[in-house]
Each structure stands twice: as C-alpha cells, then as structure tokens.
C-alpha cells in the first residue's frame, strides 16, 4: 500500500480501463503449451476462441486460480493474482473470480437457493438468503429456489451457475463454454439473457467458446487461440474480415484464402497478381511489389452479378466461372465457384430465394465481383502445411 501511495500521481494519470480490468500474460511448455496475452476492460466482453484443445479452458482456470502456469502474471481490479517471478499465487478463494463451468458444476445436493448462498460467505449470515433470492430473480428463476439441480432444465441450471458466479461480487466473470450443454432453442434464449446481463455488469467478462458466431454475437473483442498461443485480438469484425495471417483466416473459417504475389503497390490501392489477373485491393499497401502473399475475402465480399442488369460493384474485379457446389445453410445458398486455373473453389453466398429465382444450380455459368475493400492481403504462409483441418 505504501508503494501505491508514492506512485499515486503517475498511476492516476495512467489510469486506463485495463488497469482496473483483467490483464493476463501466461507462458508454459507443459503439460499444455501456453503463450497467451489477454486484456479485458471492465464492462467489456472478451471472447477467447479456438478449436478444442487450444488451451482456452486452461487459461480460464489459470485466471480463476485452479491451475498455475509456469510463467506469467495475472492482474485483476488493480491487484496481482498471480506472478510467477514474484511467487505470488492467490488461492481461488482470494481471487474473487466468478466462474461458470462448462457443465455448470452445481452442488447436486443443494437447492438452487443454497447453491447461490454457498458463494455468499462474504455477507453476514442473516443477509444471505435475501441476497440469494435476489440473485436468482435477476436470472429469472423466481419460484424455483427450492429445486435441486437435477430438477432443473439445462437452461435453468446455467442460470443458477451464472447467479452463483455473480453472487461473490466478483472482479471478473469467466464463462467456460456456457452454452454448449443446452439445446439450440434454449441457447438462443440464453444468448439474449447474457446480452442483457452484460449491459448491466461493469466488470470484465471472458467468454470461452469454440463457436465463432457465438463469439461475434456476444463479445466486444475476441482473441483467437491456437495451440495455446493467442494469435490475434480485435473486434469480431476485424478478426473475421482482416485476419492477421492465413492461419487465423483458417481458424475464423474464412473460406476464400489463396496464394498470390503483389503486382503493384501504390498509395491508395494494391494490385495482387492471381490466376492470370490482377486484383485491385483497396487500402494502404503493406507489401512491396513482388512480395509473395496470401489474400482472402469473406464470402459476403463476393458479389454475384445479375444476368439482366448491372449491380453495385460490377466493375470491381470481375471473375467468370461456373457453379461447382451448392449448399443450403439456413436461409442462404453457399456456392463454390470454379474458376479456370484457380487451385480451389471461390465461395460466395446469396439468399436462397435469390438463387432459386435466378435458377442458379450446379454447372451454371456465373460472373462475380470481388469487392476491392473486402479483399484482405496477408503475409504468405504455406496453405497446405501447419493448418488445422
């Protein structure tokens, strides 16, 4: 505390949201390799996204104090929770982290009410019951206080777990795949509830998920994790449309990633030589002419030309080809377009009714445009090697 007092002027001017939020730096080699950096400001929901086995849950458990990484530092709410160099490693009890476990880990022999009360040890005994009832009401479980976990549906169990995690008045809320154990309809409902809840919470929230759509819908920022390494952090839109490299592009399921070479590099546009044509790319050039690169484009950046009349972006990077594959996903028709000479299909999507009206089917010739501001150029990386399936 004495140290804090002497440093107060400097600290006061540098008081950024992250200083009171969560700051995680972790490295270790075994048992699970980790090289992770994560910052989350109060009021921010930060999604930690990666395939299974990428170390998401391990990082969450490190934050909660259930697992100690070999090296690193974890700060939250201005306090140091873990510092390998300084040999600081607070117990989970001392950390004030609210953790919602993947399968909720409710106490099976206790009622919903008692489950929440178990996390209210910081309150006087007389105040706990009222507070637990209030917490359960907040997650829409009034009237079910006396039920045991086995007598609750999956969605209700998840709400008890959220109420219990918040009961401690934690400095950070940690959600470990909180939607994976419920059915689709319940999940949609719980998404809405979490969206509401996070607006009312002024604490950092870390959401671990392998579901990109879930992350994009619920988070302010997301971090992509692969084999324990945090590869890129940004808004979901940034990460999903401007992946840092082809590996991230693959991890965020960017379907269209190709190898190319920079043809020209000017102030406002870059030209990328690919498959016999030069694609115009909007934006400041980051690569010198002649550099080997990869480029990618989200399916939404590929526009299908109408046969009868011109449409927006018609002049940008027109390409001709034929439909090789059609996949109906939800209300969209995803089409793989074969372009002569291209090593892989170019994927685009249109609304299914549009595809039907235009009688688009496998084998039909189509013409598309690649929007210049949707094309994203990345450092080259061998697309066949080191890639997750």
């Amino acid at each position, binding site marked *: 505390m004495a140290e804090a007092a002497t440093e107060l002027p400097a600290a006061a001017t540098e008081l950024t949201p992250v200083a009171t939020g969560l700051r995680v730096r972790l490295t270790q080699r075994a048992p699970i390799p980790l090289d992770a950096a994560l910052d989350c400001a109060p009021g921010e929901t930060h999604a930690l996204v990666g395939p299974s086995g990428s170390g998401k849950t391990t990082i969450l458990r490190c934050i*909660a104090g259930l697992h100690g990484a070999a090296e690193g530092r974890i700060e939250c709410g201005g306090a140091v929770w873990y510092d390998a160099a300084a040999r600081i490693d607070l117990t*989970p009890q001392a950390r004030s982290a*609210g953790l919602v476990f993947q*399968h909720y*880990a409710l*106490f*099976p022999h206790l009622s919903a009410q008692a489950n929440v009360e178990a996390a209210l*040890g910081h309150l006087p005994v007389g105040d706990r019951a009222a507070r637990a009832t209030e917490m359960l009401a907040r997650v829409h479980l009034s009237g079910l206080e006396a039920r045991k976990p*086995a007598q609750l549906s999956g969605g209700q169990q998840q709400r008890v777990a959220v109420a219990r995690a918040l009961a401690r008045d934690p400095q950070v809320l940690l959600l470990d795949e909180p939607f994976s154990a419920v059915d689709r309809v319940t999940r949609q409902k719980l998404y809405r509830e979490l969206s509401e809840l996070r607006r009312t919470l002024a604490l950092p929230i870390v959401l671990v998920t392998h579901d990109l759509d879930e992350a994009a819908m619920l988070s302010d920022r997301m971090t992509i994790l692969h084999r324990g390494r945090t590869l890129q952090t940004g808004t979901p839109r940034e990460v999903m449309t401007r992946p840092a490299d082809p590996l991230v592009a693959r991890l965020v399921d960017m379907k269209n990633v190709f190898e190319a070479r920079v043809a020209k590099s000017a102030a406002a546009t870059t030209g990328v030589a690919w498959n016999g044509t030069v694609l115009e790319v909007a934006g400041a050039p980051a690569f010198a002419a002649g550099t080997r690169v990869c480029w990618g484009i989200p399916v939404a950046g590929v526009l299908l030309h109408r046969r009868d009349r011109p449409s927006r972006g018609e002049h940008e990077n027109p390409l001709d080809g034929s439909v090789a594959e059609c996949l109906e996903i939800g209300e969209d028709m995803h089409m793989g377009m074969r372009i002569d000479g291209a090593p892989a299909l170019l994927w685009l999507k249109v609304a299914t009714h549009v595809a039907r009206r235009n009688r688009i089917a496998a084998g039909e010739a189509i013409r598309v445009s690649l929007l210049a501001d949707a094309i994203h150029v990345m450092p080259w990386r061998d697309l066949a090697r080191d890639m997750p399936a």
Partner: protein
Amino acid sequence: MDWTAFALSLRLAGWTVAVLLPFGLAVARILAWHPFGGRRWVEAALALPLVLPPTVLGFYLLVAFGGHSPLGRIFESLTGHTLTFSFAGLLLASVIFNLPFAIQPMQRAFETIPTDVRAAAACCGMAPWRIFTRIEFPLAWPGILSAIVLTFVHTLGEFGVVLMVGGSIPGETKTIAIAIYDRVQAFDNAGAASMAAVLLVLSFIAIAAAYGTARPRDIHVG
C-alpha cells in the same frame, strides 16, 4: 448370554469407528484426489487385511505389539502394562484390520465427486474446511456411512486377530465372537446359539439400514 463380552464388543466397535473415521477420511481423500508415486503400493498395503488369513495378520500384530518390539516397549514404559492382551492393543489391531473396510468405500465415494464441483466450491470463496463439511462430506455420505457400518459390524465379528492379539480376558479382551467360541468349546450350544443369533440379527439390521440410507436418491453427481 455373556453381556460383559457383548458390551466389550460394542465398546471396541465404537472406538474403532471413532478412531478410524477421521483417519480414514483423510487417507481416502488423498487416495481419491492426489495421485502420488507409489500410490498402488499404499493401496495394496491397505487392502491386505481383506486377503490375509486373520491368524497371519494377528501373528504379525502380536510380534509388533510385543514386549520385544519398539512399539510394545514404548507403550509399556508410558502406561505400565503391555500392549498385547489389553484393550488398547485390541483397539489398535482392530483399527488396522478394518482399514480396507473403512477406506475403500470412502475412497470410492470421494472419487465420484467431480473435480469441477470441488473447484466450483473454491471459486465460490468457500474455505477448505467449509468445502469439506458443506460439499464433500454430504456428497460422500453414502460411502462414509457404508464405511462406518462395515467397520462396526466387522469389528463385532472379527475372531482370529482378536484371539491372537487379545487372548480372552473377560472385560478386557474377550469379545462376543470369542465368547461364542468359548461356549461351543464348553459344549454350551444353547449359550452359543443365543449370542450367535444376536450377532446375526444386529449385523443384518445394520447393513440393511446402511444400504437403505446410502442409496443415492436425488443425488446426481456429474
């Protein structure tokens, strides 16, 4: 009916449970949750009383408790009487031959408590002792109850070890099982029959009661 022997058996069984319960809980938790090198050797040693002939176990205990052993000498210098052929010696022997009956059910019970449930309790801010009393103990209760009942009933019924270590001193080491044997040796079949019947009924009721209570009704772990 030898009431002195019956009372001694109950006293021995009660003390065995009282000593073995806290010790067994500690050992069972460690075996269930804290893998360590050589764990299987410890588990094997703890299970030995299940397979060794009681006379073999009794023989080793007799040697270990005797006046020539360090343990026997320390006990004698502290209390003034021998560890063998005393209630204290009998209790120690009883604790040892009941180890598997107490520890195994409790270890199995602790193993069924998911790691995440215990982690969740820590994340709720519950102190370790409170986690034990509020979460672990109630969840492991069926196994703990089995351990108590098995230990109690098994102590009432143990014969070989008791005879080797305790002899047959009325009021000190002559348990009901020994008393029954004495009656049969004395051709008093009626006396033996009444005591055997008491032991049979008591054991049956205790085990049935434990099965009834220990059945996990609304406990769904996992």
